[in-house]
């Protein structure tokens, strides 16, 4: 009886119910998208491993380190593999085609990043060709590159036009991997620098240090930095996770804004649902008075209203969550250059559900209070 009454009430005003559900689903959709934007920001952190360290120049990222540090770093206890690279910052045709491009030492780099899966033939083809490059499959798809294609980048940090030949397309092992990157031989960069700007040759932007076991990360970082203290290029070594995290904190302010905005939408929809419930309850005040006369307690009526509110938000929330997936994939395509990794996480869905639940409860509060408080005579005498 209770449930039947509840659902009859929900669908009494079909148009109003429909509109409210529409409002809730749009809000939950927006909330889910914003949460996904935030988690996309942290994608680099998610994908990083704590058994890898990043060593860079202590002054800032734009300063380089001599390539000769490699052997010294390798001598530190617990270090297994050392790779290195440079942020190249090349532009493909136009600035808006932004993607990350790195000059790296290929063999050790792919050894350190087993999550970038490259077939054996492609890997050896890439290793052999000094002018070769590999791209993530999303990046290759975005520009329609095929194996054997020549791609030219305009250097912003390293002047000139640079030609590369696509030798392989890698695929990330899991969803958090960044499949939008571009890697080429550090040797190609270095040989060219030796000819054009000799003072910038034999310099690397960062070292990636693979550890034998991740428990010694802290000691190993200190040991590496100690090696180069008081040298011309002091180093700063930290785990890959905290390195990536430093990028996130740089745009902390923006992140906070987006976070706040995602809560604002919840408040907006709370106002809408609370309004719907307040109106419905006001119209039915007479009926509730009759219920009270018949002997139904305040608690019964409270659950009736709360249930109605929750049923509304549950339907709206469900629709919103269902639409989040297609919307996120469309949005992810549109902002691919800002966020290489964009997918809806389980956590986001859970947050969606709890937000909908919260809205349902808060929206029912004032109406419930009114109904419980109202005296039978007042309720009966009231005109909707």
């Amino acid at each position, binding site marked *: 009886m209770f449930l039947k009454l509840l659902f009859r009430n929900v669908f009494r005003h079909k148009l109003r119910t429909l509109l409210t559900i529409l409002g809730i689903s749009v809000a939950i959709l927006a909330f889910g998208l914003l949460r996904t934007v935030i988690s996309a920001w942290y994608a680099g952190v998610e994908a990083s491993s704590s058994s890898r360290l990043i060593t860079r120049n*202590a*002054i*800032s990222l734009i300063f380089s380190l001599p390539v000769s540090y490699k052997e010294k770093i390798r001598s530190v206890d617990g270090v297994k593999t050392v790779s290195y690279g440079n942020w190249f910052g090349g*532009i493909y045709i136009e*600035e808006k085609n932004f993607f990350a491009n790195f000059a790296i030492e290929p063999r050790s780099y792919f050894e350190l990043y087993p999550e970038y899966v490259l077939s054996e033939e492609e890997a050896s083809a890439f290793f052999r060709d000094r002018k070769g490059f590999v791209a993530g499959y999303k990046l290759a798809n975005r520009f329609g590159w095929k194996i054997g294609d020549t791609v030219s980048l305009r250097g912003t940090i390293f002047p000139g036009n640079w030609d590369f030949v696509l030798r392989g397309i890698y695929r990330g092992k899991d969803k958090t991997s960044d499949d939008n990157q571009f890697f080429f031989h550090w040797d190609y960069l270095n040989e060219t620098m030796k000819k054009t700007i000799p003072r910038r040759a034999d310099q690397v932007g960062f070292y990636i240090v693979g550890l034998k076991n991740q428990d010694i990360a802290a000691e190993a970082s200190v040991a590496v930095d100690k090696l180069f203290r008081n040298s011309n290029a002091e180093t700063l070594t930290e785990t890959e996770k905290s390195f990536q995290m430093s990028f996130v904190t740089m745009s902390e302010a*923006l992140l906070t804004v987006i976070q706040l905005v995602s809560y604002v939408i919840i408040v907006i*929809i709370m*106002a809408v649902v609370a*309004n719907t419930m307040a*109106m419905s309850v006001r119209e039915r005040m007479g009926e509730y008075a009759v219920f009270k006369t018949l002997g139904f307690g305040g608690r019964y009526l409270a659950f009736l209203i709360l249930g109605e509110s929750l049923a509304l938000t549950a339907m709206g929330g469900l629709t919103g969550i269902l639409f989040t997936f297609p919307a996120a994939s469309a949005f992810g395509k549109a902002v691919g250059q800002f966020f290489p990794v964009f997918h809806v996480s389980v956590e986001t869905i859970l947050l969606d559900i709890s937000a909908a639940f919260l809205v349902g409860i808060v929206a029912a509060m004032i109406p419930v209070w009114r109904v419980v408080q109202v005296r039978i005579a007042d309720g009966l005498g009231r005109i909707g």
Partner: protein
Amino acid sequence: MNILFFYSLRNLLTRRLTTALTALGMALVVFVFASIIMLAEGLQKTLVDTGRYDNVVVIRKSAVTEVQSGIDRFQAAVVETLPEISLGIDGKRLVAKEMVVLITIEKKDSNSRANVVIRGISEASLPLRPQVKLIAGHMPRPGSFEIIVGKNIASGFRSAGLGETLVFGMRSWKVTGIFEAGSTGYSSEIWGDVNQLMPAFRRPVYSSVLLNLSKSEDFETVKSSIQNDPRLTLEAKRETVYYREQSEAMATFLRILGTSLTIIFSIGAVVGAMITMYAAVASRTGEIGTLRALGFRRTTILFAFLFESLLLGLLGGLTGLFLASFLQFLTVSTTNFQTFSELAFSFMLTPGIVVKSLIFSLMMGFAGGVLPAFRASRLNIIAALREG
């Protein structure tokens, strides 16, 4: 006709809770709408104000920012001799060879670090930027390890206050002055003598050459003489253009974010207004019938309900703007993706944004009210009277 408008007004007052909730929904949407364009506006104003129209920035070809650029001493010397450069009050040519690099220093309030622009300046750097004013201490003496910091740096970063010492480039640098540069990007920079900073960072090259034109229209001449000189691999840009380009990506990002958010959010608020207005029409069916019987026309009824909804929208819009106007006291400090350096800017409320927000809120009111108003105007007199 007037009576009906009072009728609408009184109705909003009578159903206070519903009116407040609906207006609150719209107010929040307007708040978000206004705050994000205010942020984009503030960012652009900051970077546009940083440049002067008759100043020219010379950087290496295809470098987008000063930090990426490198100009060796010989090339810088060639640029310095251009005849179009103006003379300062002391009779010296207004041209500055500068070095710009990023250093990572710690923020005051959190343990996070940020990249900050450090600019090696020459004698003409200050006269070239009249918006920069020293507000405390003195300029760095040439040849000394002294630096001055922008006021956002002094307030936001650890050990960057007057008289304190920053350590970078294997040396200690004493902060001898604080400068203010209005709402420009310079307020987030650190300045020191270029001839001391270059060896400290072991960079034998300058980053940029900044010069002032004696006649602003000479820009094309300067540009072509730099680009056509086979000894130079440089590019000249007006300072205003240079800084506008640096804010483009971030401003675009903010605008896209703002627009898509408000479109989605406004659906929620419009739905809220629609629910309220449909309920208003439904509960007043009898009254509408009476009004029609008294001789009020369908169009008058339509306008009365539309007016009520527009009023609701306006109320929301004004509340939202009122809330958003307080944001002007806030300063946001974040990393500009394009230059990779820290930049502080504030929310800016312009008359244009006020107008846009109000139009937007009226549009929401209209969208929410138009269908219910049509329903009200199309009610059959007899049926409406009977129902009431």
